[in-house]
């Protein structure tokens, strides 16, 4: 078999079909009607401007997380700590908002500062994972998982402790910010915030341009593919790893800031909404290519939002979206593995 574009695409399509077949089987075994389920997911994701705007709302943090992860994946790192980085971004954003909400400053200025604070929070937390890896020799997966737990604990402590509502500690989070401190919502929608949409789109374009078009991006690639050779070629390896952690942290922090300023308008216990883990899936699914991240993240967001219809209409559990996403990733990666194996078997050699 030859390494061609056509057979790459064929393998991808095959993987997607397999994932659909498996999901359909799971649904049938659960006694549901698979095609009705797919229909309602679709309608729930594109059926009206309202749901489309919900999809976009969910797309923004997911795409931000994915963008950041593409950078760490490029340098060969599994930044599983992104969940904690999103959480810290949200915490820093909330912190800045709490400090400034009664200052009487221009709300736009407060929002800008809050978003910057979120970026800082995400970055610091990511650098911590990077430092553990670089100077402590802790694999970034274990370090990241540990830091995720710490971030969750910190978040819950803040919500139930110092930042609790007057007299009430509630899972529903801190007291919501005044409407003037919400990200401006588009007319005709109840939650779509164009500013965050712009941030996310500019973000993924910047990541794409950086990875594909800059010297820095090329160096990240080199380190990711072979750190030993990259070092011999004169590239400072650990510095580039730290830099990619920092960049991913910026994006994760942005995602956290968006969750606080544009989605929940307060800090809630599960503020990351699992977008970090979902972003890992998106990044794996697109084979770490920035060009495909935006549409695939949009597709995942659509699945998430669309699947809310399942419990409402079909009385099915909405975790079906997760099943579909999981099997998709699994089969696409499996497909890539099989393909690589077939390619290797017939590699040109003499």
């Amino acid at each position, binding site marked *: 078999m030859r390494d061609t574009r056509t057979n790459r695409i064929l393998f991808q399509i095959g993987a997607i079909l397999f994932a659909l077949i498996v999901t359909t089987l799971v649904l049938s075994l659960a006694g549901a009607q698979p095609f009705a389920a797919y229909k309602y997911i679709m309608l729930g994701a594109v059926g009206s401007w309202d749901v489309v705007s919900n999809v976009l709302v969910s797309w923004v943090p997911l795409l931000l997380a994915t963008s950041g992860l593409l950078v760490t994946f490029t340098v060969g790192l599994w930044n599983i700590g992104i969940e904690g980085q999103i959480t810290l971004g949200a915490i820093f954003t909330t912190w800045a908002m709490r400090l400034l909400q009664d200052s009487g400053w221009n709300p736009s200025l407060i929002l800008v500062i809050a978003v910057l604070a979120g970026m800082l929070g995400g970055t610091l937390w990511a650098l911590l994972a990077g430092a553990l890896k670089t100077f402590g020799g802790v694999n970034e997966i274990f370090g990241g998982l540990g830091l995720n737990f710490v971030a969750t604990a910190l978040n819950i402590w803040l919500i139930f402790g110092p930042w609790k509502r007057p*007299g009430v500690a509630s899972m529903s989070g801190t007291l919501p910010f005044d409407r003037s401190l919400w990200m401006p919502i588009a007319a005709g929608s109840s939650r779509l915030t164009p500013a965050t949409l712009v941030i996310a789109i*500019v973000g993924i374009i910047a990541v794409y341009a950086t990875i594909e078009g800059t010297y820095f991006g090329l160096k990240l690639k080199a380190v990711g593919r072979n750190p030993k050779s990259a070092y011999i070629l004169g590239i400072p390896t650990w510095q580039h790893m730290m830099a990619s952690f920092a960049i991913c942290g910026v994006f994760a922090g942005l995602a956290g800031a968006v969750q606080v300023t544009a*989605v929940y308008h307060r800090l809630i216990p599960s503020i990351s909404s699992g977008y970090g883990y979902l972003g890992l899936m998106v990044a794996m699914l697109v084979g770490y290519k920035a060009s495909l991240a935006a549409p695939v993240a949009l597709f995942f967001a659509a699945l998430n939002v669309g699947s809310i219809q399942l419990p409402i209409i079909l009385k099915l559990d909405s975790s079906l979206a997760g099943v579909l996403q999981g099997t998709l990733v699994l089969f696409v990666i499996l497909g890539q593995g099989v393909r690589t194996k077939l390619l290797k078997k017939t590699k040109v050699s003499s």
Partner: protein
Amino acid sequence: MRDISKLFLLLTIALVAVSGAFAQSTPPAAGPNLTIGLVMVGPYNDHGWSQANYDGLQYVLAKVPGTKLVYIDKANSADRPGTTVSQLGESLVAQGAKLVIFSSDDMTDEAIKFAQDHPDIFVILTSGSQQWKEGKNYLPLPNMINVMGRMEYMKMVAGVAAAMTTKTGKIGFLGPLINDETRRLASSAYLGARYAWVNYLKKDPAKLTFKVTWIGFWFNIPGVTSDPTQVADDFFNSGFDVVISGIDTTEAVAEAAKYTAQGKQVWAIPYDYSKAIDEGKGVSLGVPYFNWGPAYVNAVKSAMNGTWKNHFEWNGPDWKNINNPDTSAVGFNKGTLSKDASAAVDKFVGELGKGLNLWVGPLNYQDGTVFLKNKEKATDQQIWYLPQLLQGMEGQSVSK
């Protein structure tokens, strides 16, 4: 790239408009047909708060012709990450709902946002107090009604049942999170227990231990809240033989059944849902429950015939029969009670019906400061917004 960002900036400017103007009028009457949307915080079959609400809506469907129900359960950010409650409400509107019931205090922020964003949709925020003119958080929204039952009475009844049953004189209260509502309910249970202890059993109130342990939310969220099973175990292992549950789920009953099966006779009192006593036959002393049906029927009818007016209602029991499904907003379903305890419960309900008021001074807050002077009766506001537990109760008054 610069072109794209410019385009989006323009789009932003074009689209942005802060929806500041809220409609000032009541939504138009829905007419003979009404689809009702119900948003529940837990699973619809949780044998607790959410199921009580779900059953209330089933009652509405049976009693009011022309009504239809669409619902979404598990509406909390842990079960449905990335979604907001107002967004879930909108999904129900997309299915035709013209009246949306947000059935948890936990949804207050999102329900307000929803009501503001959708002035044409009727909204019921169960257990909220935003439409209470005399309340502290008055925020008039013409399309919103607050509904709550006077559970305080039934918690008192539960307290009586517990005090009449305990052999060790130690009653545990498995509390959810700490807020006005949960403080007043825990305190009510204490008032009932103390009343029975002193007046029926003629015992020294100082010998009655009443301890509240909060888990942090209405139900268990692993890793976030304390584990209610663990808390119940701690109670039973440290001499408490009756646990009154204040949470939406039935761990206390399950644990009591387990301990009793192992030969250590203990009891529990579940909460919210009338059939919750089925969970632990023989260990459940009874259940104080909500009967949302009648209040929801009234609200639904007013939305259909155009008599809707935003208001707050705090509905009491029908003292003629606290378990009348058509008239009583709260009730107490007796379970395994001794003859004496059962008689005491009946007697106590009778006394309440005749005007017995336990929210009368002298009553002190937990920290010893005066809550009610001698003979002073508490106002509804004082009870609703109870700032502390009462003197004589152990446990946290405010979350630290």
